[in-house]
């Protein structure tokens, strides 16, 4: 059997499949369907300093092979996470990634600091959520913004720091290199692509927030391209995501240069999606006789 372990900035994941932030809650609901011990890791619902109610509904719209969401970071706040959720997740043998978001750099720093003594494995900096008005994505779509926030949070963050990139930019390589230069330990991408859907009968947007973030299979080719671009531009490890529903999809991202993958929207359709992806990766490695999953990372051969 092939070795599925991957090491990302010192964290050893038992396999390269991580549940994507915002699509898996804190794992509780999915624990009724699957064995969380089988996951490489869980990136929890995006946390903010204080609890947030999120945006008004409707918060989801279906589009061809994709969805738009405008949840807007509904979450119980970082303290409740520490109190209620870490102990739950720690019962499982899987890595915990705390996904954090804020409207000011101070928010991010404070959260990183608060989480510093907590029993989590990494912090994922969400500077790419398109669904909150202040801050967040604003930090993620310029090199100046990403440099500033990465530098600041790096100082406060005692865990490995993963910076999550937004695809809504002209040149994602630049942004990635800026994050790397300021001390990011790893990069994850892509977050959702800003989109809009209109109900032609009511003549109003489907989402009460008017716009939302596109995810699911529709975005896969864009995500694979960006993962390739980023993985060939930086030295730190890259975690790829965007539309992964199967082991084959995950392999595509890993060939493009992702050392691990995250599975998001697919969980909604198939609560066992993450497990199926693990199994699919294993099957592929076996079929082509790879000893370790690391052997395929970045192995796409360009024309």
């Amino acid at each position, binding site marked *: 059997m092939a070795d599925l372990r991957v090491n990302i900035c010192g964290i050893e994941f038992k396999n390269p499949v991580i549940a994507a932030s915002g699509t898996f809650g804190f794992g509780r609901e999915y624990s009724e369907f699957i064995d969380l011990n089988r996951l490489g890791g869980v990136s929890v619902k995006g946390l903010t300093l204080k609890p947030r109610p999120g945006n008004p509904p409707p918060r989801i719209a279906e589009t061809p092979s994709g969805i738009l969401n405008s949840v807007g970071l509904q979450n119980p706040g970082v303290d409740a996470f520490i109190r209620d959720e870490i102990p739950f997740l720690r019962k499982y043998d899987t890595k915990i990634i705390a996904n954090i978001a804020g409207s000011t750099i101070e928010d991010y720093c404070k959260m990183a600091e608060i989480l510093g003594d907590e029993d989590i494995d990494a912090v994922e900096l969400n500077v790419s959520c398109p669904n909150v008005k202040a801050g967040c994505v604003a930090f993620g779509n310029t090199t100046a913004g990403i440099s500033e926030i990465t530098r600041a949070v790096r100082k406060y963050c005692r865990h490995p720091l993963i910076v999550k990139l937004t695809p809504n930019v002209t040149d994602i390589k630049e942004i990635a290199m800026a994050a790397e230069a300021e001390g990011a330990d790893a990069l994850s991408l892509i977050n959702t692509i800003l989109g809009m859907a209109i109900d032609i009968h009511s003549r109003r947007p489907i989402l009460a927030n008017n716009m939302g973030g596109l995810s699911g299979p529709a975005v896969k080719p864009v995500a694979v391209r960006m993962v390739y671009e980023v993985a060939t531009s930086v030295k730190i490890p890259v975690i790829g995501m965007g539309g992964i*529903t199967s082991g084959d999809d995950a392999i595509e991202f890993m060939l493009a240069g992702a050392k691990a993958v995250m599975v998001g929207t697919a969980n909604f359709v198939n609560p066992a999606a993450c497990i199926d992806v693990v199994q699919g990766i294993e099957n592929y490695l076996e079929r082509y006789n790879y000893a370790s999953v690391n052997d395929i990372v970045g192995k796409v051969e360009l024309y």
Partner: protein
Amino acid sequence: MAKILKEKIISVEEIGPEVFKMTIESGYVSEKASPGQFVNVKCGDGSNPLLRRPISICDVDRKAGTFDLVFQVRGAGTGILSTKKPGDEIDMIAPLGRGFGIPEGAKKIGVVGGGIGIFPLLFLLKERKAIAAKENEPLESIAFLGFRNAENIILQREFEKVADRLLISTDDGSEGYHGFITDLLERELERTKLDVVYTCGPKPMMKRVIKIAAERNIRCQVSLEERMGCGIGACLVCACKTKLGDGWEYSHVCKDGPVFWSDEVMLE
């Protein structure tokens, strides 16, 4: 506990204009389901449509180990569902959500349904009746069902079987009372006392039912609809406002509902 199930379709029947009744074999659902719960169905293969579709459990035959979904064709998902054939496999997560509750000592119950909102109410009446019979308790039930017109009336016979009385209204008066079903409810409440009212249907109708019930101090439960992602409480898209102290918070229709007490939820 909900499970991912692949069950067999027994029959699919068009019981009204663009309304289909699907009977599904499922030992699990028929045993575990309670009224007001729903199933989340994968309608097509592949990624378009991508999401599952929530459909209420309309009827359960616990002995036969089957249950019914009734759905109206609205778009791609329900469209594909309507083309399924007996023998086909259907992929669903079920049963889901929190169903109807029964307040202590509620012996006189009313259900008020409009259009496609009537489906979960059938299972509710049937189950209440069965329990009352089993426990030898008195039970009186009235079903108020509103439809667009005579042609759209469905499941009449089924409701007659499980409700002591069935009152029907149509918007155009082509059958039953001419007007809103809530008018019928109000009228009836002039002479009959109900302990609890359950309602499901268009929002304006449910709001009116809530008001009518509140004015008379009748407890009331509503079954809500909201666009869903995961259906199991993880993605947080299916938000609805519920009261929290003096303020409110967002609860989630798929997990905290779809059924809420009328005094805990804030319909907008």
